[in-house]
C-alpha cells in the first residue's frame, strides 16, 4: 500500500452556479513530485487554493498525513508543515530579501510572548542564511524584494516557502515567466529538494518542459474533472489528454 502525504477526496468547489472543481480526487505519495496540469480554467488553482486552505471547498475532504484539515484556517497550515508559493507573486515587497525569508521562518521562532519579543534563535537565522545561499540570493540579502528581477523574485518566494521547513511544498506555476536557464536551475533545485530532503512537492504548472522532466506522477484536470493520471510517459501518450489539452503542444514537441 502506498504512503500518501496528501489525499483529496471528492473535492467539489462551486462559485455561485459555476462548478469549478467536480468530485476531484488526488493522492500525493510521500517523497514524490506530483504535477497538476490542465488547460486554463480547468480548476487547478482552485484545487490548489483549497489544499492550502485559502478557499473553502463546497464538499469533499482534504487529508494531510491522514489528518482531516478540511476546516483548518490557512494560517495554521504552515505550522503543519505545508508551504506554498503564489501564481502572481506575493512577496513582502518593501522588506528586504533577508526579512522575507525570516518571515517564512515565523513558525519556528517560538510561540510565547517572550519569543515574540526576543531576537530570533541563531539556528533559525542560520537556516535562513543557508536558504539564501542555496537559492543564490545571498548577494541580494539586503535588497528590497520589490527591486529584484522577476526570476529572483520567484526564487525568493521559493526560499521563503522553504523557510517553513515544509513536509509538503505547494508550488503554483513556479516556472511561469522564467527563462530556459532559470527553468533548468529550478528543475535541479526541486529534484534535489525531493531526493535529498524528502520534501513532497505538488505543483501546478503550464511549462511542460519542467513538468515532464521532474514529475513522478502527473494528474490532468479539464473542466474541473480529472481526465488522466499517471507517469509523465503515460500522460504524454494518453489520447484524451492529447485531445483535450496537450494536443498541439505535444505534437509540436
Amino acid at each position, binding site marked *: 500500500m502506498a504512503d500518501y502525504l496528501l489525499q483529496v477526496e471528492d473535492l467539489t468547489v462551486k462559485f455561485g452556479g459555476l462548478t469549478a472543481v467536480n468530485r476531484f480526487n488526488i493522492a500525493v505519495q510521500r517523497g514524490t513530485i506530483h504535477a497538476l496540469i490542465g488547460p486554463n480554467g480547468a480548476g487547478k488553482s482552485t484545487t490548489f487554493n483549497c489544499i*492550502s486552505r*485559502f478557499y473553502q471547498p463546497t464538499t469533499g475532504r482534504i487529508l494531510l498525513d491522514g489528518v482531516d484539515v478540511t476546516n483548518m*484556517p*490557512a*494560517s*495554521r*497550515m*504552515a*505550522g503543519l508543515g505545508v*508551504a*506554498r508559493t*503564489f501564481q502572481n507573486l*506575493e*512577496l*513582502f*515587497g*518593501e*522588506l528586504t530579501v*533577508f*526579512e522575507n525569508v*525570516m*518571515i*517564512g521562518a*515565523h*513558525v519556528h*521562532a*517560538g510561540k510565547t510572548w517572550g*519569543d*515574540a*519579543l*526576543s*531576537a*530570533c534563535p*541563531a539556528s533559525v*537565522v*542560520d537556516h*535562513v*542564511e*543557508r536558504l539564501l*545561499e*542555496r537559492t*543564490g540570493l*545571498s548577494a541580494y*540579502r*539586503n535588497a528590497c524584494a520589490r527591486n529584484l528581477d522577476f526570476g529572483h523574485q520567484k526564487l525568493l518566494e521559493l526560499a*521563503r*516557502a522553504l523557510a*517553513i521547513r515544509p513536509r509538503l511544498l505547494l508550488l503554483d506555476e513556479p516556472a511561469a515567466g522564467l527563462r530556459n536557464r532559470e527553468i*533548468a*536551475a529550478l*528543475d*535541479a*533545485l526541486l*529534484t*534535489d529538494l525531493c531526493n*535529498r530532503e524528502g520534501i513532497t512537492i505538488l505543483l501546478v504548472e503550464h511549462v511542460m518542459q519542467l513538468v515532464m*522532466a521532474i514529475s513522478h506522477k502527473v494528474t490532468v484536470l479539464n473542466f474541473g474533472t480529472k481526465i488522466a493520471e499517471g507517469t509523465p510517459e503515460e500522460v504524454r501518450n494518453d489520447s484524451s489528454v492529447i485531445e483535450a489539452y496537450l494536443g498541439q503542444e505535444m505534437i509540436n514537441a
Partner: protein
Amino acid sequence: MSDKAAAMLSRSEASPPARWTARSNVSPARIGLLALTTAVLIFLPFVVTGYVLYIANLLLVFVVLCLGLHLVIGETGQFALAHAAFYGIGIYTSGLAGNAFGWPFPMSMLLAGLIAGAVGVVIGAVALCMRDIYLALATFAFGEALQWVFLNWDKVTGGPNGLRISPARLGTLEILSDKQAYPVVAITTLLMLLLTILISRSRLGRSFRAVRESEVAAMAMGIPVRRAKVTAFGLSAFYAGVAGSMFATFSTYIHPDSLGFQTTILVLTMVVVGGLGSIAGAVGGAVVFGLISEFLRQTPSYQEIIYGLILIVFMMYAPRGLFAFIHDKAGRVFRG
C-alpha cells in the same frame, strides 16, 4: 541536472553561516541616533527652564503618541483613526486614579496604558474585520463617540467643565512643576522608544510588517492575520494610554475639546510626514511638527493656514517623509 544540484548543495555546505550579518541592521548610525537622543534628553533640563521644559514635556507626549500610531499604521498598515480617544482614556484614568485613590503615578500610568490597551483590543477585534477606508471610518466613529462620552459623563469626567488633575505623586514626592515632571516624562519616553525598537526588530514586528505587505502571504507563512492586527491596535492604544498618563503628570487640567479628531489628525500628520514606517521618522515628525505648531501659536489667526502650507510643502518635496529626506541629503553630502 543532478550535477548542477550537487554543485548548489556543496556550495551551501562549504561556506560557513554568516551569522554576524544577520543582525547587521543594528547600524552604527542608528545606535548613534539613539545615543544622541538620549544625551539630548538627559542634558535638556540643565540648559533650559520653565516654558521650554513644558514644551519639551508636551513634545515627548507627542513622541509616544506617534510611536503608538507608528505601530498600527506604519508597521501593520492599518489606518486606525481613534488615537485621541485612547489618549483621553489614558488622561482620565490616570487623573481619576490620582484624584480619587491617590495612587502613585507609576501605577496609574501602567493602569492607564492597560485600560486603553484593553479597550483597544475590544474595539480592534470588531473594527479590524474591516479594512482601508471602512476601518478608518469605524475607528473615527469610535473616536467621536468616546469624545462624546468624555463631554457628557459629567460625574466621572467633569463633562464640559473639564477635570482638575491633582498633582502626580510617589510616596511623599509630589510633582508640582514641569521641571519635576520632566524626568518622569523623559524616562517613560525612552522606555517606550526602546520597547518600540524591540517590537520592530522582533518576530512580532516582522509579523506586523508581513501583514502590511501582503495579508495572503502572511497567512501562508503561518501568521494569524487578524490576531496580528488586533495586537498592533491594542499596543498602539496602550502607547496612547501611557502618553495620556504622561500628560497628566505635568498638567493640572483636561478638557474633552482637545481629545477629538483634530488631535488624531495632528498625530497622523506627524507620523506620515515624519516618514511612514520608520521609528526615527515618527520621533522626528513628532518633534518637528510639535515645534512648528507651537511656534505658530504666536500668530493665532494664521496658524492653521501656515501649518497647512508647511504640510503641503513637505508632501511635495519630501514625500517619503522627513527622515528619508534628511537621510538622502546627508548621504549625498557625505558621499560628496
